[in-house]
């Protein structure tokens, strides 16, 4: 290995293949040489190449993300920290973030998904919050046709369960969809929520020259060398095999101890700052800590405890071995830190110190192997503007029409058969085979489990509760990126409304294709604008997130898939809403303006219709009014059930309420309403005593300005053994349940 300043003597950047192999462009390399005033050494180049990767530097998304609103009255910590935090009252902060682990999961789904959960948990306890819940958002190819996708689904779900179940954090919700566009690039996104007394919240900024940098947790091995960053920054090609030996193995038991130990260190006020190790390992964690604190760091590789002999300094600096944290400690407290760590059987090793040099200086074998200004690692990577180009031929010019699924769904089939086919399809079938592999109750907070309500509900020690929902709909975003992405935000908020929750903030993960391609850049730009507009309309700030680009195979990009995780608050967990129809005789009503369209719907997909635009327009004021009306009614305890109308239209929404309650319903749909047409996040199916429904949406003190009247249309009654849509269909609830139960069970 060459040492600092001893970079190979070469006649020009373009002939030096080191940087190209590490994923840096010639221009980027030239910029490094210019900033440094010399060629970087090998360790330096390894560090720089990772820090300048898309994954770490957000080269193609940083400018875009500035469009998202990030401020709100509840925000305690916004984007830029390991996880954002909102105020949930009673002196408590709720931290949350969603993150992708797509590429590692495509390579090794069990470990990829497991370490995805492990990584997002660390981001949450890195801010001082105890992880209290996990949610997952998954996308695979068509499981009905693809054995590979069935395998990925099975192993990814097992991996998520393995990590969450073993570490004692409940997995309380999630979503999973299947589309051919994900056949080559599955998506595995995991979200974690954590709770902290606000006094324990901690930032990652290193501070105090002379303070000690202590590495906590697992030994450092050759895990994921070049892993996340190389994997996440280049499209999948033929050379996959070489990327394989870098698989990271998750050890939830080690992380459980690390978590308890970290929280005890914080409770004992022993730490100046804390940071997790994720992508690009020590390099990224340490340089970000230094940058945030405007200090320098000296690190001695020889002190890093290794799992394997003979590791090069660059390997030590970029290793992505899991279950490690980095903290800054004042020198006098180091023995106390070590003592707490010993109790938890956690290795604690001083590996360096904070300096006022503003430089990252890495030593190994007594030599300086890297000496870089912190800024060059963290801030100086070029940031690119996107060059969006709307696809001329519309969405179908990028994505082929889906393959039609079954004869039962052609226009000539009966509506009853269509409903059954929809319920049995992988996208609408019961998710029980997935979520029964997750523990939703550990920690004794779970008031609403999966399938009990549209959002999960967790009780807080304050006596109040939080609600959380995670959503995405790539096919609809592919049809119409701006409206589709906005719909996802509205759908999350609608889910919260169904349990009585009012949004506090959201996190997002932008899963897209190659941003250097015009149409992907356009999808990104439109989608982010759609999210931003929805956030403004709903007054929900974005408190953090993650971006996963280059999800693209030779056949083309994935559907653009922004995944939104939204958290809300409700005053009384005992009144959290439910999804199931309950009492016979309850009236059923549609709340909100519902003007759906078959465009981009599940039925259109089953019929093999091409993607099309536009989606039905979003009327923010009307949607907001509907959300508010349902939320208030749930909070008042007037409703038996509340469910937003989404995939599969009103027929599927009604069927889901019937199956959940094991009771039928007799309904007359409003004139001209297509039972299977879709519009997300705008309207609800609710049930309750007839008198109670009459009062929904009426403002207590008469109509207030700015609050539009909310249409409430009574459409039928709960009762009987079947779901009857007059003049349309009649299907026994048992048949609905059976269709819905089989769809995914067959794939798992």
């Amino acid at each position: 290995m060459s040492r600092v300043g001893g970079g190979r003597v070469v006649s020009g950047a373009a002939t030096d293949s080191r940087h190209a192999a590490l994923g840096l462009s010639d221009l980027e390399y030239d910029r490094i040489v210019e900033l440094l005033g010399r060629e970087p050494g090998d360790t330096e180049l390894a560090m720089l190449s990772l820090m300048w990767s898309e994954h770490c530097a957000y080269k193609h998304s940083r400018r875009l993300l500035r469009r998202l609103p990030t401020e709100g009255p509840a925000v305690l910590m916004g984007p830029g920290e390991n996880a954002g935090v909102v105020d949930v009252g009673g002196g408590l902060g709720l931290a949350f973030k969603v993150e992708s682990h797509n590429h590692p999961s495509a390579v090794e789904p069990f470990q990829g998904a497991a370490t995805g959960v492990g990584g997002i948990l660390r981001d949450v306890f890195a801010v001082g919050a105890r992880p209290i819940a996990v949610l997952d958002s998954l996308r695979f190819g068509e499981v009905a046709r693809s054995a590979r996708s069935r395998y990925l689904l099975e192993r990814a779900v097992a991996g998520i369960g393995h990590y969450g179940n073993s570490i004692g954090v409940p997995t309380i919700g999630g979503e999973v969809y299947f589309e051919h566009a994900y056949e080559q690039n599955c998506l595995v996104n995991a979200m974690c929520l954590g709770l902290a007394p606000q006094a324990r919240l901690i930032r990652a900024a290193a501070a105090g020259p002379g303070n000690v940098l202590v590495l906590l947790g697992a030994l450092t091995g050759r895990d994921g060398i070049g892993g996340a960053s190389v994997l996440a920054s280049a499209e999948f090609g033929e050379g996959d095999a070489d990327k394989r030996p870098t698989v990271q193995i998750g050890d939830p038991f080690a992380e459980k101890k690390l978590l308890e130990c970290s929280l005890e260190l914080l409770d004992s006020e022993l730490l100046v700052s804390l940071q997790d190790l994720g992508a690009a390992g020590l390099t990224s964690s340490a340089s970000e800590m230094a940058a945030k604190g405007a200090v320098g760091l000296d690190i001695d590789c020889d002190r890093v405890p290794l799992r394997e002999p003979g590791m090069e300094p660059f390997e030590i600096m970029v290793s992505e071995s899991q279950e490690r944290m980095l903290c800054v400690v004042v020198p006098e407290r180091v023995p106390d830190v070590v003592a707490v760590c010993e109790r938890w059987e956690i290795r604690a090793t001083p590996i360096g110190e904070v300096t006022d040099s503003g430089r990252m200086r890495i030593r190994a074998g007594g030599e300086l192997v890297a000496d870089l200004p912190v800024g060059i690692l963290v801030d100086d990577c070029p940031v690119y503007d996107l060059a969006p180009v709307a696809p001329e031929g519309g969405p179908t010019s990028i994505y082929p029409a889906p393959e039609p699924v079954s004869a039962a769904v052609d226009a000539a089939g009966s509506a009853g058969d269509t409903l059954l086919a929809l319920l049995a399809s992988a996208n609408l079938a019961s998710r029980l085979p997935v979520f029964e592999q997750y523990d939703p109750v550990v920690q004794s907070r779970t008031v609403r489990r999966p399938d009990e309500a549209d959002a999960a509900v967790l009780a807080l020690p304050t006596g109040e509760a939080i609600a959380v929902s995670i959503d995405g709909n790539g096919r609809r975003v592919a049809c119409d990126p701006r409206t589709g992405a906005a719909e996802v935000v509205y759908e999350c908020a609608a889910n919260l409304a169904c349990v009585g929750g009012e949004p506090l903030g959201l996190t997002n993960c932008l899963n897209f294709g190659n941003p250097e391609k015009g149409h992907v850049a356009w999808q990104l730009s439109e989608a982010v604008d759609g999210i931003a507009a929805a956030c403004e309309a709903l007054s929900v700030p974005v408190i953090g997130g993650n971006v996963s680009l280059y999800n693209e195979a030779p056949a083309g990009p994935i559907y653009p898939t922004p995944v939104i995780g939204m958290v809300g608050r409700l005053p009384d967990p005992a009144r959290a809403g439910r999804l199931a129809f309950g009492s016979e005789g309850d009236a059923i009503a549609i709340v909100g303006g519902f003007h759906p369209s078959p465009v981009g719907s599940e039925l259109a997909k089953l019929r093999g219709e091409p993607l099309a635009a536009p989606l039905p327009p979003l009327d923010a004021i009307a949607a907001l009014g509907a959300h508010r009306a349902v939320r208030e009614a749930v909070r008042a305890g007037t409703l038996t059930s509340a469910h937003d109308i989404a995939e599969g239209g009103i027929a599927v929404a009604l069927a889901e309420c019937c199956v959940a309650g094991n009771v039928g319903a007799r309904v007359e749909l409003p004139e001209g309403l297509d039972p299977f047409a879709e519009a997300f996040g705008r309207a609800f199916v609710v049930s309750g005593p007839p008198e109670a429904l009459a009062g929904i949406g009426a403002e207590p003190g008469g109509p207030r300005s700015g609050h539009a009247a909310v249409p409430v249309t009574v459409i039928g009654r709960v009762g009987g053994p079947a779901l009857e849509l007059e003049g349309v269909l009649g299907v026994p609830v048992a048949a609905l349940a059976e269709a819905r139960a089989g769809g995914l069970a067959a794939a798992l």
Partner: protein
Amino acid sequence: MRVRVLVSPKRGILDPQGQAVERALPALGFDGVSNVHVGRLIELDVDDPARVPAMCDALLTNPLIEDYEIVEDVSA
């Protein structure tokens, strides 16, 4: 023929089970143990042992994270 497939975690890859056993043994009074790895043992009767390597690659092992060794003609 009875065949055994001995599957071990690939060297260099984290083996938390092996580590846990290695840490537990001294506590039980068993010293002088190191380099512990925990893998899987698959035993099967096959008509054609020549096909076992293909079975290992296709189903029995995960080549990304595991190595294997085939022991033929086990007299069990």
